[in-house]
């Protein structure tokens, strides 16, 4: 079965989804990510969905689950590169992706993660994005 590669970069895990996500692939990504966070003691997860053209309620739920689970594992999740059309659809659906931080691109996503980890380490609880 296909698998989406997860790259480790310092304390972060990087995932770039470049194929059409089907259900099992999404579920295995969810599973792999959580295991990886635990194994490498990751502090942040960055998911690049710039190549994903459809985020329906199932995919939205998967992203939400990943964010919630990594949060419990003491890590942050940032989703980057969302296509405008996808964002429009999600809003229309009322899927707010609660718990998922978002950034425009990978660079800004990394910045956000760095900041969040720094904040967590200094004990600050303020949120930077509007999705929280």
């Amino acid at each position, binding site marked *: 079965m296909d698998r989406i590669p997860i790259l480790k970069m310092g304390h972060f895990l990087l995932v770039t989804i470049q194929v*059409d*996500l*089907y*259900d*099992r692939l999404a579920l295995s990504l969810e599973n792999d990510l959580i295991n990886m966070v635990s194994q490498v003691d990751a502090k942040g997860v960055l998911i690049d969905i710039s190549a994903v*053209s*459809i*985020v*329906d*309620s*199932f995919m*939205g*739920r998967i992203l*939400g689950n990943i964010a919630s689970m990594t949060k419990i594992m003491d890590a942050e999740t940032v989703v980057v590169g969302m*296509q*405008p*059309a*996808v964002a*429009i*659809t999600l809003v*229309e*659906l*009322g*899927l707010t992706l609660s718990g998922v931080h978002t950034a425009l691109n990978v660079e800004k996503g990394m910045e956000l993660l760095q900041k969040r980890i720094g904040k967590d380490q200094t004990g600050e609880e303020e949120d930077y994005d509007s999705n929280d």
Partner: protein
Amino acid sequence: MHKYAYQNIVKVGIANELDIVLAYKRARQLTQLTGMPVPTQTKFATAVSEICRNVLEHVGEGSIVFSIIEQDKHLYVEALIIDYGRGIPNIEEILKINIQPLGGKGWGIANAKKLVDQFFIESKLNNGTKVKLLKKIPANHPPINKPIIEGWNEYFNNESRISPYEEIKQQNIQLLEVMEALRIKQMQTEHQMDEIKSLHNNVSALLKEREEANGMLQKMNKELEEFAYTVSHDLKAPLRNIQGIAKLINKAVKASGNEQANMHFEMLNEQVKRMDSLITGILSYSKSGRQYIEQTTVDVKNLLLEIIASVALPAGLEVQILSEMPVLHTEEIYLRQIFTNLIENAIKYHDTQQGIIAISAIEKEKFIEFAVKDDGPGIPEEYHEKIFQMYYSLHTSSNDSTGLGLSIIKKITSEKGGKVWVESQGRGATFIFTWPAETA
């Protein structure tokens, strides 16, 4: 009311989660081709994805057909999703839901409804569900007509070939079909092999039986011939003694002048002669083909003249040699025996005062056909085969007929690869035999 402008532009069967991917890809492609903006494409494709996932999750199988319909002078892209599951009992309630349920599940239908311009759902208990999703095509759409739709059809058909999943699915189906065909072929082949094996076994058994029977027959034949040879050979000695003793007694009887006894002795002599010729016949029959006889140069004409001179030819009967006779390299004794037998027969059974026995020869490829023709009583057709059997004689009353002469001829000719037969209609009979034309 709406009517189909272009029905069944592309169809996707839903049986696998990858089919959902294919379905929303088709939705995006079609909406893009009809000139919808990207967000609209995404919304429609997402709605398709939601409904198709429901079908797969709750029923397991279904299909989606894309068409273009016309309603109030506007064109719409239609996605018709059909399954044959148990149906949805509480559609009304589901459609009323407006708050995201916990965990986000069970939201598909309501989500899809939000994303399209028109939404129709029809569900019958135990009779499946039909969902129709309509998205309006913008008024400034690119031209849509029959040739263009045909172009799209072609595009989708060709595209499906390069889509890896479609390709794999197609190949898988083909592979399964080939495997099934192979399995059937193999079963047939195995069955045929079994049949061939059992036939082979049968044939082998039959061949073995035949070989055994052949061997047995050959052995029995040999034993029989040896037995005939021994018996006839051994019988000759006592017979000769009887002949000698009879001669002595005959002398004594003649001296005593008993006429009656004298006549009886002549009868005894006749019987002894007959017995002797019978034994000689059996002996020569069993000998023929058993012994190696040297081949010599035989001038058939000279041979015939010798035979004619040696047989007791009654006055009134004449033997004629009609044609040129060959000079052969062959066993003289065999030819002598055959001609002697045939000429003697012709003389023996002749029933008139005057008669002609004619001998001729015709060369036919590798054989020479010899014929001995008489103008005697002739042989009825029903006996033409029988007379060549051992001990069969038409003239049982005749004292000197052993019934062996013709069977000896038959045996000799078949040993030489030839044959013998008789031709006779009414009066007269012609005995014909073939002999290898090994010229000297």
